[in-house]
């Protein structure tokens, strides 16, 4: 985690120091990511997409929203949420992003919010690393290196193409 923290410092301190720029550093300066991981595409029904999961910690005094993410290995990246439609859980883009409450956490977990990685340009095999960048509502960004892990829970929630919205 120190590495993540140091990267975070590198990313966020720079605008702080050079604070004449437009960035408005806020409580987000202390945002941290814990336990990131990406589900393997090896053997997946649709290996062109997968999801990243992680926890964002916001020890600051102001709410922040995770609004978007980038991944060089993915042609399209969205923040997704699971919503109930009738008696079925459906996946859809979280248009307003996901709240990281002041003094709290945002958990991106299977069955909940996740970073949807689509149009993948390579296989994500177990043990690989995936680099992501998270973007927050206060203008800050956070680079994350996530290991690719196996996960055996049935995968329809994340890989079913049908409910994936077009952007």
């Amino acid at each position, binding site marked *: 985690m120190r590495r993540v923290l140091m990267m975070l410092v590198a990313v966020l301190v720079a605008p702080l120091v050079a604070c004449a720029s437009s960035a408005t550093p806020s409580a987000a300066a202390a945002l941290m990511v814990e*336990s990131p991981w990406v589900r393997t595409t090896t053997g997946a029904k649709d290996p062109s997409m997968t999801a990243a999961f992680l926890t964002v910690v916001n020890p600051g005094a102001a709410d922040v929203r995770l609004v978007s993410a980038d991944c060089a290995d993915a042609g399209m990246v969205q923040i997704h949420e699971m919503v109930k439609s009738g008696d079925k859980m459906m996946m859809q883009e979280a248009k307003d992003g996901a709240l990281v409450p002041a003094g709290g956490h945002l958990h991106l977990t299977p069955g909940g919010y996740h970073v949807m990685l689509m149009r993948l340009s390579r296989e994500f095999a177990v043990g690989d690393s995936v680099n992501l960048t998270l973007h927050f509502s206060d203008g800050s960004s956070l680079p994350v290196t996530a290991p690719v*892990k196996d996960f055996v829970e049935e995968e329809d929630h994340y890989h079913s193409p049908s409910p994936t919205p077009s952007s």
Partner: protein
Amino acid sequence: MTEQSSEPSGVDRRHLFGYAGAAGVGALAGFGGGRASAPAPSVPVAVTRQTYSPHDVHQAGIVTRTPAFTQLVSFRLLQPSVDSLQKLLKLWSGDIPPLMAGKPVPADPTPELAQAGVSLSVTVGLGPRVFSLPGLERKRPDGFVEIPAMQHDRLQERWNGGDVLAIVAADDATTVDYAARRLTRDAASFAEVAWVQSGSWRGVDASGAPVTGRNLFGQVDGSGNPAGELLDATVWATDPLPWFVGGTTLVVRRIEMDLDFWDRTTRERQEKVIGRRLDNGAPLTGQHETDALDLVATDADGRPVIPVDAHARRSHPDENDNRRIARRGVNYTHTEVVDGRPVTSAGLVFQSFQANIAQQFVPIQNRLDSGDALNDWTHAIGSAVFAIPGGFPEGDWIARALFE
């Protein structure tokens, strides 16, 4: 075998932790004078409800107290390659810090099982085959050898060897099972389980204070373990290759104990076999567990009070050119169905930590094999050796420098 390094990274780290040269000094200065039982650690450390860090210079689970439950899981690499070994170690390095902190691992399907403050340690080791992988042939630690066949061995292949080891220990078996399963699951893409050995240890008295603990023969087991600087000198690799700074080597022996035969043995004979009293572990020449053995004392008939074949004598540093090991045992009872009937065996999952297997464990074991009275009751039925690297910094992964 004598390859040594003076690269700055290794030197700096040794210097930082202040044990450069200690290994050589400890063996000579003041510790060779017939002290059988090193004193208990000067600062007593509680056994239960501890929190250990994987980020110290040494891994936890080596000289830390033995908690109630331990499970050793040995793995064989499916495709022996540097790449798959690296990926396995990276994934584990993402799992071990949260596990030891009592937090779920990434992608944890059973996150509620994570428990903080339960003395959980995960200790990772690398088997001999690792050092035949391309590029790693010259990274083998000094004296890291397999154990030669002993005449009293009754080895079974199912308890032998392995390429990668995880030792999981904690205050309760549920947490141990949970952590071991998470590590096994994350290893599954790269390695299959070779064997699993579980055991228990009672390292506290009724008040919860630390005690040495007893094996299933009822013997106080581990009284002679080195402590303090002598422990450091015994265990940690001396002038290691840079990747092995803070490392040690481990011999795992599954020692089957013939409890039925032991039960039929008179108490007097039992005490002479070990050379120690059963009630408190004191040498037969002393009063207290930590008293030094008097190896020259004789009884009224002129016979040694501690018999010439007593285990405590045969394994004593004075009779082994000052060679020592640090032992860490856990008791096992194993029931399996044979020909339709339950058959129970019992013994000790014996873990020996030392800087150098060839110079420490092997000569001592040879001497025990040739004349330890305990051999009538015990046999090794499994044997494995592992190189145990040092701890890893936060955000890093274990043994990374092995691949540089």
